[in-house]
């Protein structure tokens, strides 16, 4: 058909073929140009991209530093756990797999989607943490779906294990995933989404030390994310272990003493500022935060009217009530006003046309009795004489209404009102009538438990105030220590010289508060044989007028406070108890006494232990230096009537005992002579003869008023240290 002659001679025009040839040449040149652009000009760039494709950084989590108590007992540990990550750099879409993943890992689908959304801007090779601490079942699910869900990865890491039942929860804090808000904060510049950071307490303050440095491993993968080899491993550097100043025994005692009451307990060494215990109730279980807490539980915690997340020990800003009277006494004595003040208490007094109540008729009251009796009328009068600005000046100088500078986040400062303060905040002038209630720690005054502990111990220590802290700074790098001081400004370490008379009157007054013979407000908290001095506080939570308007259901019972020291002067132990709605300060004092008892007993046990070791000395072992604290009431001749002579009540000192029964006494004597001090060398067998011998052998150090002892002292608890290690 076709092959007839009609088109035999016809040909395709050469011109058209030439056009096609040039067209093909042009196309080839264009393709070659494209190859040149990619392979010659862009080679380096694409090589890098190919490497990025091939190599994935897998994080190796650094184990967080452990947290110990002062005696190296473990408080916070880590445990191995498996976390599930999602890797997006896959050829297939992850979105379709989400329902299956959510089901297999027991996750909320919406929350999972939100997590992915949060990571939308981070680079594709970065794994997204989707569930932490997965169970064995969930691990099995991932293993079983390795082919369908190649995007799921598991990573072994160490996870925080906190004490149960909220033990020391506020002090320790907790860790959590760094939040989006945090990431925008310059402080968190070095953090990446998904990083775990300390969110409260010690975990937050010392995060930089505890967290260590995560390592990484460069893994060669194929496009299915399957690992086909390793290139380089950068090992994780574990976080630094931290030794707290906390004493677990004291902490436990404080936790138990407070029980299920709302409030706080702070125990501190007034000489060093080391916090021995810090309790805030109600507490929460930080273990629930270590794994991601679900939203409902979290909002429940936030919305709880009891504020379980609040560390009351440093954040509760409440009226100090009568504990403020110590400050009033200091101000009154230092100003020379209180010494000769005699006030007649008839159940209250009238100032500026308004009657201010006292809780009983104290009759004639002077400063010596005003403290133990906590007579309001006396302090109304004193406050009226001093005026608000003098009170405020003294209060600020001892750190009330100021942060203490404790190394814990979000400390509150409280308020000490003054004319300036009122003008600034209310644009009103101060009314003299308002000063009256400030005199008993009511009105606008608010303080935190940690402030009270610091202020009472500073006054009992003759004006040596310390900065409270929960971590011994000696284990911190120098730079970090510096930055802590900047990060937590506060009243810190300070010395405010006190008149000796002031010191004596106030410390004796505080001792009277726990003395039944004085009729002190905390007489029920008297500890036999322990010089436990302190001050109660019963703080109204609302004015009487407001109370009448308040409906039912609102707890209007007053807060109970107690701040106590052992011994009364130059104390080694201070405890501050806040019992919210505890009705009376004396109730809080009973809780404080429980903690004090445990402390004293522990010291006794430690001493016995040392003495047992010292009981079998090697020849030539030197005398042992002893410190002792005791009280008159522990002695045989305890009198229950009348006012005890202050000077007669001596409570402590240092002395040497020689563990060798005989012969070594001379060396001890020489030593004490050469030092020119009044240590006494003890000769006799220890410990059998210790108690008897000590009784007659102790002489107080010169720093103590009244060098001669008019009574027979009996050591009730004591502490011995050797200058050289014991054999």
């Amino acid at each position: 058909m076709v092959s007839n002659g009609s088109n035999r001679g016809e040909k395709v025009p050469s011109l058209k073929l030439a056009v096609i040839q040039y067209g093909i040449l042009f196309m080839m040149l264009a393709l070659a140009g494209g190859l040149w652009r990619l392979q010659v000009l862009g080679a380096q760039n694409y090589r890098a991209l190919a490497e990025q494709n091939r190599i994935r950084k897998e994080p190796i989590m650094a184990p967080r530093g452990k947290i110990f108590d002062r005696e190296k007992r473990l408080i916070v540990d880590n445990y191995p756990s498996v976390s599930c990550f999602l890797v997006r750099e896959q050829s297939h879409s992850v979105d379709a797999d989400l329902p299956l993943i959510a089901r297999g890992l027991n996750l909320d689908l919406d929350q999972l989607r939100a997590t992915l959304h949060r990571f939308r801007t981070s680079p594709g090779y970065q794994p997204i943490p989707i569930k932490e601490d997965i169970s064995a079942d969930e691990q099995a699910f991932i293993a079983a779906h390795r082919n369908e869900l190649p995007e799921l990865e598991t990573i072994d890491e160490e996870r925080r294990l906190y004490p149960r039942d909220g033990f020391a929860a506020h002090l320790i804090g907790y860790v959590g995933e760094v939040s989006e808000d945090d990431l925008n904060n310059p402080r968190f510049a070095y953090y990446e989404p998904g990083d775990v950071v300390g969110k409260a307490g010690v975990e937050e303050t010392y995060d930089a030390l505890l967290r260590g440095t995560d390592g990484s491993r460069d893994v060669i993968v194929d496009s299915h994310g399957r690992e086909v080899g390793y290139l380089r491993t950068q090992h994780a550097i574990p976080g630094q272990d931290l030794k707290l100043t906390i004493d677990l025994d004291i902490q436990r005692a404080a936790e138990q003493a407070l029980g299920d009451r709302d409030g706080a307990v702070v125990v501190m060494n007034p000489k060093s500022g080391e916090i021995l215990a810090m309790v805030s109730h109600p507490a929460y279980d930080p273990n629930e935060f270590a794994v991601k807490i679900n939203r409902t539980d979290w909002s429940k915690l936030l919305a709880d009217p009891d504020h379980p997340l609040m560390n009351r020990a440093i954040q509760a800003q409440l009226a100090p009530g009568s504990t403020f009277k110590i400050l009033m006494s200091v101000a009154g004595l230092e100003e020379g006003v209180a010494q000769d003040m005699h006030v007649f208490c008839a159940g209250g007094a009238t100032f500026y046309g308004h009657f201010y109540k006292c809780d009983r008729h104290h009759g004639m009251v002077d400063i010596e009795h005003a403290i133990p009796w906590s007579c309001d009328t006396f302090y109304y009068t004193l406050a009226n004489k001093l005026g608000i600005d003098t009170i405020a000046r003294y209060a600020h100088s001892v750190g009330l209404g100021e942060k203490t500078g404790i190394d814990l986040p979000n400390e509150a400062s409280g308020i000490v009102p003054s004319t300036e303060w009122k003008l600034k905040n209310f644009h009103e002038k101060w009314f003299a009538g308002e000063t009256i209630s400030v005199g008993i720690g009511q009105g606008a005054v608010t303080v935190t438990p940690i402030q009270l502990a610091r202020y009472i111990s500073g006054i009992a220590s003759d004006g040596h105030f310390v900065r409270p802290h929960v971590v011994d700074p000696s284990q911190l790098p120098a730079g970090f220590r510096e930055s802590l001081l900047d990060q937590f400004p506060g009243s810190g370490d300070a010395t405010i010289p006190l008149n000796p008379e002031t010191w004596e009157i106030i410390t004796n007054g505080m001792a009277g508060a726990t003395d039944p013979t004085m009729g002190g407000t905390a007489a029920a908290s008297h500890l036999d044989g322990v010089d436990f001095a302190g001050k109660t506080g019963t703080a109204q939570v609302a004015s009487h007028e407001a109370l009448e308007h308040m409906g039912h259901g609102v707890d209007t019972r007053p807060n109970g406070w107690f701040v106590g020291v052992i011994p009364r002067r130059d104390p080694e132990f201070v405890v501050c108890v806040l019992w919210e709605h505890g009705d009376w300060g004396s109730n809080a004092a009973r809780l404080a006494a429980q903690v004090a008892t445990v402390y004293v007993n522990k010291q006794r046990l430690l001493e016995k232990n040392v003495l047992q070791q010292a009981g079998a000395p090697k020849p030539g072992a030197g005398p042992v230096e002893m410190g002792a604290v005791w009280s008159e009431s522990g002695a045989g001749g305890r009198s229950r009537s009348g006012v005890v002579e202050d000077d007669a009540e001596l409570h402590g000192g240092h002395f040497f005992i020689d563990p060798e029964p005989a012969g070594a006494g001379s060396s001890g004597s020489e030593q004490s002579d050469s030092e020119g001090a009044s240590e006494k060398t003890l000769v006799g067998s220890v410990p059998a003869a210790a108690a008897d011998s000590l009784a007659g052998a102790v002489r107080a150090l010169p720093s103590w008023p009244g060098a001669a002892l008019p009574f027979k002292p009996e050591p009730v608890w004591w502490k011995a240290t050797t200058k050289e290690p014991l054999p």
Partner: protein
Amino acid sequence: MRRFLSFRDFDWGLLGLVLILSTVSVLEIHSTTAHTRFASFESKQIMFIAAGMAGMFILAKIDYHRLLDWSPWAYVVFIVALIAVKLVGHKALGAKRWIALGPIQFQPSEWVKLVLVLVVARYFANLGGRNLTWREIFKAFALVGIPMVLVLVQPDLGTTLTYAPILVAGLFLGGISLRQAAILIVCGVALLAGVWSSGKVFKSYQKARLTSFINPDNDPRGSGYQIRQSLIAVGDGGIWGRGQSKGSQTQGYFLPIPYTDFIFAAFSEEHGFVGALSVLLLYFFILMRLIQNAQTAADLPGSLIIMGIVAVLTFQIAVNVGMVIGFMPVTGIPLPLMSYGGSSVLFTFLALGVAMNVRMRRFVN
């Protein structure tokens, strides 16, 4: 009057070029599949090439004028086959392209290419190369358009597009005037714009595929991913390449289907700019050789047949290599003589057989 035909007149030079490319293809298929479940693909490819060469020699023996005579019947048979595929075809990868004839799986759309080359050559040869009327032009459109629509609904966009250059080459060489061409281009652009925006003919994944090459990040999980990985692979090759079986993109399976559609990317990664340019040169020589054969052909139908084949091959090379280097969208068009696949290899060799056929008979008359 018929001259003695011998294979001395066979285009051995062209066959040599083709066999070099086929060897390169087998080696690259080996490299890309060696450690996968497709590990034996290079030997399968050798079988396809062998079968293709056998077919090529057989087809070269049959006078192309006879092939042209048969072509209308073949056209009808394959139109029916395409309809059958749509009705009873075997579904693979979401599209019905295959039909089972006994044990052999059969993809009619590849064969239609060859039939169309013959049918179009025959059609325009009969018109004698004079100026075309609009009626004749529309007839040509119908001739190519019917199988295009049938393949498009399979759906197989890539193969559909490969039919178009046959028509274009036929019209260009068959005597379309500049004015007619201009009008057709304007109408075509308008129609394409209309079809595109109507959203009925193209499925959305096809649209995404067609546009993602402009900005791969628009569709980073789908075809954008393929383009991106392909660009990385090509660029990763640099001037000298990573070496045979050493491309990380290829060996790490980042490059999608590296033994078929993206084989040029795999080859470019492992053999670099030098290797890729060499392959392009081989293609250029093959095409030039074919055009030379078209020029020396004995008659107009012979020239038109070869130019139809040139058009198909040129189009496939341009689109496939263009896709690999990011100039063209992802259309699923294999690279002739390089990509793995029986239908593609057979078509190429049979088409070359027909071209040889024309060359061997260039001194007839």
